[in-house]
């Protein structure tokens, strides 16, 4: 695996590399070089199985992180290829030519995150939502509780507690001095 990472380093600009477990590695590459590295990994290095393609919203940095999780059947290693793209104008190259089920993930990301994949088949079709008018719901700045309260009718009598506050008040009063409770942040 170290050998492979060295090889990739020679090919593309490797922004970051991390070993999570013996069978799980993450590499971060440039947006423009992604398609090349994916097709190289698929054709020459045996990473033939695309487990998933997903996005993570880093709203503070105004970036989306796309994760392409590959798997090699021979060595049994998972390799996550990460790409950071701009959050304000999210657009990415489509991988539907490399994997026949890639369009499914791209359709999902287009609907739930608003990331566009030009050229991907059926990418503008709806996947799970029907007649959605708000912003893409999986973005961090979409408040699902507020939307739910605004749209659906609440039945009165429901109360919600933050467990931390609630337990502190109800249960820890007598146990505050107890050595069994370890508090990391207090």
């Amino acid at each position, binding site marked *: 695996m170290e050998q492979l990472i060295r090889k990739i380093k020679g090919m593309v600009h490797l922004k970051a590399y991390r070993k999570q477990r013996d069978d799980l590695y993450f590499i971060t590459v440039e947006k423009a070089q992604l398609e090349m590295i994916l097709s190289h990994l698929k054709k020459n290095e045996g990473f033939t199985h695309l487990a998933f393609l997903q996005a993570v919203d880093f709203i503070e940095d105004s970036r989306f992180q796309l994760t392409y999780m590959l798997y090699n059947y021979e060595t049994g290693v998972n390799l996550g290829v990460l790409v950071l793209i701009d959050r304000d104008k999210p657009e990415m190259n489509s991988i539907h030519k490399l994997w026949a089920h890639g369009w499914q993930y791209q359709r999902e990301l287009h609907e739930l995150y608003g990331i566009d994949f030009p050229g991907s088949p059926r990418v503008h079709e709806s996947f799970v*939502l029907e007649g*959605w008018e708000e912003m893409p*719901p999986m973005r961090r700045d979409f408040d699902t509780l507020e939307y739910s309260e605004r749209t659906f009718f609440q039945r009165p009598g429901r109360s919600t507690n933050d467990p931390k506050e609630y337990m502190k008040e109800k249960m820890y009063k007598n146990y505050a001095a107890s050595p069994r409770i370890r508090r990391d942040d207090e």
Partner: protein
Amino acid sequence: MNKKHIDDIEKQMKLANEGLPECERCLFSDDRPSSVEAFNKYYEGFLNWARSRSLWMLAFGTGCGATELRPLMTSRFDMARFGIFPRPTPRQASVFVVGGYASIKTIKRIIRSYEQMQGPKYVIALGSCTINGGMYYDSYNTINRLDYYIPVDVYIAGCMPRPEALIAGFNRLKEKIRAGECEGMNEYTEKFDWYKENQKQIIKDWNMPDYNW
């Protein structure tokens, strides 16, 4: 209420058949639903007794509550003992078991299926998520209470309710039918505009006729 607002409501409440091409208009009834009067006390009592003895259930697994319907249908709990039997189509069914949370896409189909069922018809709602949203109270895609969209006769609490709880719920429904308290169908016709308004508030692409009997 200003005039524009009234116009808007009238526009919303117009017959959806108006948008359809001429050849398809005859497929959907233009009539608004109407209430069914009860017969005289003794005959209606006999009918209610008979209705409670043969509840045919619509086999539409709308949520995860449908998992517990399968043990109920099969050999261990065997709901055929109680005169309950699954039917594949709404036209033959008299009980609609809404199995748990209903997402917006599903509630549209629930309403269509409910309207296609022939009266008398009853609704059992399973699980906490149909009562007040349950653990999905803050989800943007699941409704919080079902009785704003279709009339519900019996709620069964729990996540998910055990088959024994379902049997108890069905028995409660039978008692209510025998006592003549299950008037959900008439309630739906009487408060029809209110129900439609609530339904249209969440179903954004309303591309179906207002009612299909």
